C-alpha cells in the first residue's frame, strides 16, 4: 500500500468508489434495457461522478501537492486506486448490475449518513449533500431487486444468482483498517464494522420481500482498499483514461 496521509487515503477511497461505479454505469448509456432504465442509470452515474469530483478535489487540497480531480482520475495506475472490489465488477446481466447497485447503495447510504456528522466540515458538507441523492439510489435499486426477485421464475433465479455471486465482495465493505480506525477516533471518519447490522437489516428485509434467500457469508475478498484489483479493473481504467493520456494537458 502506498503510504498516504490517512485523511487523503479516506478521501481517495470515497472518491474512487463513486468514480469507478459511475464509470461502470456510464458504460450503459445508450445501452439500457429500456429507455427509462437508460436514463436512470445515467442519472445515478452523474450523481456518483459529481460526488467523486467533490471527494477527489478535496483529496488534492488536503494532499497539498497540486493534484486535482483529473490528476487522480486519469493519471494514477491501477494499484493506486483504492475503491472496493464490488464497484469495479462488470455490468454483466441486468440482474448483476442491479445486485451490485443494491449492495453498494445500501452500504454507501450508511457510510454517508455517518460522514454527514464528520468533525471535518468539508467532509460533512459533501456527505450531507450526497446522502440525499444516495437515499434515492437505494430506494430505486431495492425496488428493482423486489421486482426481479418476485417476478418470473427466470428473473427470480437470475436475481438470486447475481446476489450470490457478488456476496464475496461484501465483506470488504465492513473491514476496518488502520485508516478507518484512526479517522473514526479523530471524529473525521466512521467505523465500518458497526454499519453491518443496519446494512444486513435493509438488505435482508428487501430480499425477503423479493422472495430471495440471503446468502451465507463464505470466503470474502478484501483487497480493493489495498489497491489490489480484479482483472476487469485494468480494462475499465484503460478505457476511462485513454483520451486524457493520449493528449495530456489538452483542453476541450
Amino acid at each position: 500500500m502506498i503510504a498516504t496521509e490517512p485523511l487523503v487515503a479516506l478521501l481517495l477511497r470515497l472518491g474512487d468508489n463513486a468514480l469507478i461505479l459511475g464509470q461502470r454505469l456510464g458504460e450503459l448509456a445508450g445501452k439500457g434495457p429500456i429507455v427509462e432504465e437508460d436514463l436512470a442509470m445515467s442519472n445515478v452515474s452523474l450523481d456518483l461522478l459529481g460526488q467523486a469530483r467533490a471527494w477527489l478535489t478535496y483529496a488534492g487540497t488536503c494532499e497539498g501537492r497540486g493534484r486535482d480531480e483529473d490528476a487522480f482520475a486519469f493519471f494514477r495506475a491501477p494499484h493506486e486506486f483504492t475503491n472496493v472490489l464490488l464497484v469495479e465488477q462488470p455490468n454483466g446481466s441486468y440482474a448483476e448490475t442491479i445486485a451490485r447497485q443494491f449492495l453498494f447503495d445500501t452500504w454507501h447510504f450508511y457510510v454517508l449518513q455517518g460522514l454527514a456528522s464528520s468533525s471535518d466540515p468539508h467532509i460533512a458538507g459533501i456527505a450531507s449533500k450526497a446522502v440525499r441523492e444516495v437515499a434515492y439510489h437505494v430506494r430505486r435499486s431495492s425496488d428493482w431487486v423486489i421486482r426481479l426477485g418476485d417476478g418470473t421464475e427466470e428473473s427470480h433465479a437470475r436475481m438470486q444468482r447475481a446476489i450470490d455471486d457478488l456476496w464475496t465482495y461484501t465483506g470488504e465493505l465492513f473491514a476496518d483498517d488502520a485508516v478507518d480506525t484512526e479517522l473514526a477516533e479523530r471524529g473525521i471518519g466512521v467505523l465500518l464494522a458497526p454499519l453491518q447490522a443496519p446494512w444486513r437489516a435493509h438488505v435482508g428485509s428487501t430480499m425477503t420481500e423479493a422472495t430471495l434467500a440471503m446468502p451465507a457469508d463464505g470466503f470474502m475478498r478484501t483487497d480493493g482498499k489495498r489497491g489490489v484489483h480484479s482483472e476487469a479493473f485494468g480494462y475499465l481504467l484503460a478505457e476511462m483514461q485513454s483520451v486524457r493520456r493520449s493528449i495530456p494537458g489538452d483542453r476541450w
Partner: protein
Amino acid sequence: MVAAPPIDEVWAWLADVPDPEIPIVSVVDLGIVRDVRYEREASGEERLHVTITPTYSGCPATTMIRANIETALHEHNVTEYALDITLTPPWSSDWIGAAAREKLRSYGIAPPQERASTRGISIARETASAAIACPRCASVATSLVSAFGSTPCKALYRCNACLEPFDHFKCH
C-alpha cells in the same frame, strides 16, 4: 467599473438569469443563488461575492449556471467579483418558493408537493406518498413511469386521466 451596485439590484439581475434546463424559473427561484454580499478585501476595497449552490452533485447544468451568472454580472458592468460555491447547507427542493412552484406547474412540470425537511432522508420504500397532481388536468390519478426523467431533479409520470406524460420536480 461603475459604482458598486446595491445588493438588491444584484439580486434583481440574478432573478432574470433563467435555469438552463427549466428556463421558466430563474436561478434565484430555484434557490441556487444563496447569498449576495460585499466583503472587505485585504486591500480595504469592497468586493462583490455571489454564492451559489449546486442542486445535485453531478448536475451538468452547474457549469452553465455559473457562466450565465457571470455573463449577467458583466452585462451590468460588474467585472470585479467572486463567484463562490457552497455545499452547506445542502440544496433541497424546499428552497423553491410558492411562486416558482406555480411557474413550474404552468410550464407543465408538477412541482414538489411535500417538504423535504418534513419527509426527512430515508431509504424506506415509498408506499403511501402524496399523489402527484397532473400539471395539465390536475387529476391525482397519476403513476410513476421512471424515477429519473430528463434531468437529475425530475421523475417521469403519466396522467391516467388525460393520458399525458409529464415531469415531476422531485421532493429532494
